[in-house]
């Protein structure tokens, strides 16, 4: 019954939250990630997002985690990074102690983290090679690729 009431409150918050209203949860029930001691499992509820009680509920979190993960493949590694940041409590909690919903979110967040790390390594290695190698490594192509020359050539900064 308590869980159901909490779910209703969640629904209310969603419904009203869409119009900008934020209801405060019942003081006894707000977990906030580090909630005070209590016997009911509402007080020890952990929130999957980094925003805590202001963030997503657990059902929405799964959908969002999956969506961020899939969209990140469209050359958007920053979405993977956002995914990891957003669901940081999920990443941090150990698999044994986390609630069951986290185990659905966790694979997406883990894979996003790995994807972001791989991409970051690749991109930074390319950028560093470009910067450090310079003309000695690339030849005259370097002058064509570097951004400030390109901006001058194409007149990109002339609009402002």
């Amino acid at each position, binding site marked *: 019954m308590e869980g159901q*009431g909490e779910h*209703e*409150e969640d629904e*209310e918050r969603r*419904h*009203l939250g*869409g*119009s*900008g*209203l*934020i*209801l*405060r*949860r*019942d*003081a*006894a029930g707000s977990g906030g990630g580090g909630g005070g001691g209590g016997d009911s499992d509402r007080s020890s509820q952990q929130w999957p*997002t*980094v*925003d805590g009680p*202001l*963030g*997503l509920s657990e059902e*929405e979190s799964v959908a*969002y985690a999956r*969506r*961020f993960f899939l969209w990140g493949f469209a*050359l*958007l*590694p*920053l*979405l993977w990074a*956002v995914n990891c*940041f*957003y669901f940081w409590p999920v990443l941090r909690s150990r698999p044994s102690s986390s609630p069951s919903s986290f185990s659905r979110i966790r694979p997406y967040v883990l894979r996003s983290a790995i994807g972001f790390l791989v991409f970051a390594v690749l*991109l930074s290695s*390319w*950028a560093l090679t*470009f*910067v450090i190698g*310079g003309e000695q490594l690339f030849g005259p192509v370097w002058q064509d*690729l*570097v*951004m*400030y020359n*390109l*901006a*001058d050539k194409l007149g*990109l*900064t*002339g*609009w*402002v």
Partner: protein
Amino acid sequence: MAQDPDSTPSLLDSLGEEIIRIVAPVSACMLLVVLLVSTLSSSSSSPSPLSSLIATAYSDPSSSSSIWDKLSGALLSSLVFVASVTLITFLLVLLFYFRCTRFLKSYMAFSSFVVLAFLGGEVILLLVTHFDFPIDAITFSLLLLNFSVVGVMSVFMAKMPISINQGYLVIIGVLVAYWFTLLPEWTTWALLVTMALYDLAAVLLPGGPLRLLVELAISRDEEIPALVYEARPVEPLPGARRRLWRERRDFGTNSGSNSNPSSLGYMFRQTDERRDFGTNSSLNSNNSMTGEVLPETRLVISEQESAGDSSVSELRAPLLQTQLDSHGEQEIEGIGLGSSGAIKLGLGDFIFYSVLVGRAALYDFMTVYACYLAIIAGLGITLLLLAFYRKALPALPVSIMLGVLFYLLTRVLLEVFVVQCSTNLLMF
């Protein structure tokens, strides 16, 4: 927030926390604009196409002879701008009235994308060329793509971490404000003053477009799709203060003891409004954003719990009545000043504050400090008035007027004094 169990948080803690949470991003936006302006203005010597176009169109060249010519040219261009903004806002009210929400949302997402990608790209390019940073085209385009797409998603489409959402809103404000500082000087000041007056009129007059928009949104209980900065809500205080708000609210609603959390929750709920300021096509025809309109909000408002709204709140009573019954007194006590919603400040306010400070930065840093203090004081006054009147209030007029006044005073009076003192090694 973390507190030790011995000390209860005082009124100052929670009220101060709320004010800090809105003053900090405004200050960050202003700081970034000042940095951008001071870095990039030294590098560009030739007048930008925008300012030269305005100069030729409205005879406001920098080397004009008489002050009256400059003033009239500036006033003319700013009046044209305000007129176009009024038209566009009325158009928005119309669209909102006919519930074209999808169109509005997608349009605003598109305009945010243009701001982030094109304006942001240009500003970053200017910085790169200024510092001769050897980044290559592939990395640059990839990073820019990521930056703008994630920005658009965070502002409009998906629910992202609050800090990322706030950060992107500040960045959009910085970019648009930087673009506005490229206007010639007299035009900028005339524009600021006329926008402040327009804001005052549009929000407070009964026929003003922004007031219509707010009333529509309230009557329908919809959220206007707009660019608005929302500070995080502060944990409410336990104690007598909340009861005070509740009593006041009971005067407004007829419901008496049936004052449901929704009407209580509206206490400091702040809805957004939208105001467009478009890149007027007559101002910049060779700008790629011709006809681009950026709907943004400019107001800090709080909703008033009037008797007319009681019908709306009654409708919501059945939804929340179950919660009331099950949790009883504690639920009502839980809604207080800071908990229900947070302070929302429209992005247009950010932008015009930053334009003022950026333009002050083009003169000297002394004016920057003076204008910054004036704007923050004006913002504080507006928040006070907001707490007092509890209805939609324009955030621009007080701050802009104080800012302009202090800019003039500093430039005319203070600078002479400070320079004399410094050269005689007296102070500073």
